[in-house]
């Protein structure tokens, strides 16, 4: 995904592109922390740690003590800043072959290679609740 999201973006996102220089599976957690501004809140997961930035709008996780970012999670609220897609249709212009996988409370979960997102249930073009890249 480019630095600034644009619905007319021609280049489509692919696994390995990452976001803002953070590539899950490659970027070290310490580098991700630096790229995301340094200040974060750390929480323990059963099999790793999560690091929350900007009051939880952005999160990176690392699992199994690898020290590498395993997943990058972004809140749908970031769409206000035009840095992630705002709606499901917008997301489909960026992420190829999104397919519905399951319902979660109030949302529908879609996946494609290296990406999973939640869009508001009840609309065919639901607002994005969150996106995660892995």
């Amino acid at each position: 995904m480019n630095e600034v999201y644009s619905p007319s973006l021609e280049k489509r996102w692919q696994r390995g592109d990452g976001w803002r220089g953070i590539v899950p599976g490659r970027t070290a957690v310490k580098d991700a922390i630096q790229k995301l501004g340094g200040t974060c809140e750390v929480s323990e997961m059963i099999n790793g740690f999560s690091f929350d930035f900007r009051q939880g709008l952005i999160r990176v996780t690392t699992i199994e003590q690898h020290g590498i970012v395993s997943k990058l999670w972004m809140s749908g609220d970031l769409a206000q800043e035009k840095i992630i897609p705002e709606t499901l249709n917008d997301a489909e212009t960026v992420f190829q072959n999104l397919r519905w996988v399951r319902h979660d409370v109030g949302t529908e979960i879609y996946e494609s290679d290296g990406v999973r997102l939640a869009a508001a249930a009840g609309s065919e073009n639901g607002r994005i609740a969150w996106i995660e890249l892995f």
Partner: protein
Amino acid sequence: MLQLPETPFAAENKANSRVSSETPDKLKEEGALCGLPRALERKEAGEKQAPLTDTQKFEKKHGVTVETRGDKHVYILKVNGQDKELLTTDANAKGIEKAEAELVKLRNEKMAELTKTFKVTFALEGEDVIKQWIQKDDCSWERGGMIKSRSANLAELHGIEAALYKAQPSQLTKGGGDGVKFYFLSANYYKGDPALAYFIQQDKNNHQAVYFEPGANDGKPITEADADRMGKHHLYSIEAVTHHELMHNAQHNSNWNTASVKEKWARKLGWMPFEDPRTHETKWIFTGKQSELYRRDQDHCKDEFKWCACGKHGGLQDAEGDAVSKVKEAKHFTLDQIRDLAAVKPSTRYFVNPLEMFAEGGMKYRVNEKRRTELLQDSPRLYDAVKEHDQDEITLRYGKAAGGEPNYVRSVSGKLVKNTPEARAEIAAFEERIRNPEKKK
């Protein structure tokens, strides 16, 4: 016009009890209330039922019971533990026609009243809802035809009303300017996969909403008081389901879409996040009393979900405690076993994830004193978490006094009251009595 059956209503009513003893238990058994778990857990979904008689169709349409007394029909709403006689007509076709018109009028008046009081709205008969989801053989899903809404009936409106009085301000949308919209679907949201209801973050008009599934409320008790009157197995009254879905609305309004917020509340209930190393999906691990761990999972979308034993890092374990990679190889537990083993006991048998467990706790906290007592007795940690979340929401909506105290608190009955010393004392006495029953002796 309704065609009168040959059989008098009273005799037919006796022969065809409106009270279903099957659906709620089945749904409870399989842990299915609103959206999760999903496909193929309810094998009987496609079972055919006997066609309704004209009487039953009339009763279902309006949410009332019709009794024949001599040459009269009496139209009864079984609500709040009582039989409320709405009107009486002649026991003939003209009488039925008159009742039809009167009940529609009562329904419209009740909808207008609820809209005025609580800012909620209701979908109209025949209104578009959304295109149905249909599962294909390869487990993928596609959109089908447009689902239409039907009108709410009187039973549903009274059940929703009962919930609204105790659930406020959770009926409001995120901005607080208006309330959720209720839809009554004519076809299942997911074809062949019925639930009772869904919370919807964004309907076709970008509005928070609740979808009631077809048949979800048929023959159900209207309120929890009616559920008790009819037998305890009728847990999911219309009032209870509404409370549950409005708790999801409260979660949405409280930013549970944000992972850190959701996890904060989940942890209070004994759930921990686990990132599946294979899929990177965040799953939930449920903690037991001895800090042992459990996970509800499946190997394939066509498989049933199973509660499984987990190792300290969330990986599946078999009966010997050895790591295994598949759900089918893991040590399994029943729903009731997990409920008994849990560090924080779920308040009902529907606890497929922390959001649902929390919504069920919230329902019991708000619905009435009896259910709130059960919640505190069974699961004090869940009670405390729900109470904290509830007060946060109340304070956010109705503010604080100059001294920093919330303006409102939720009374033991579930209704909001001014935050006076008397109100606080009543709540404290209730909690003390339940938490320390020996002291009373």
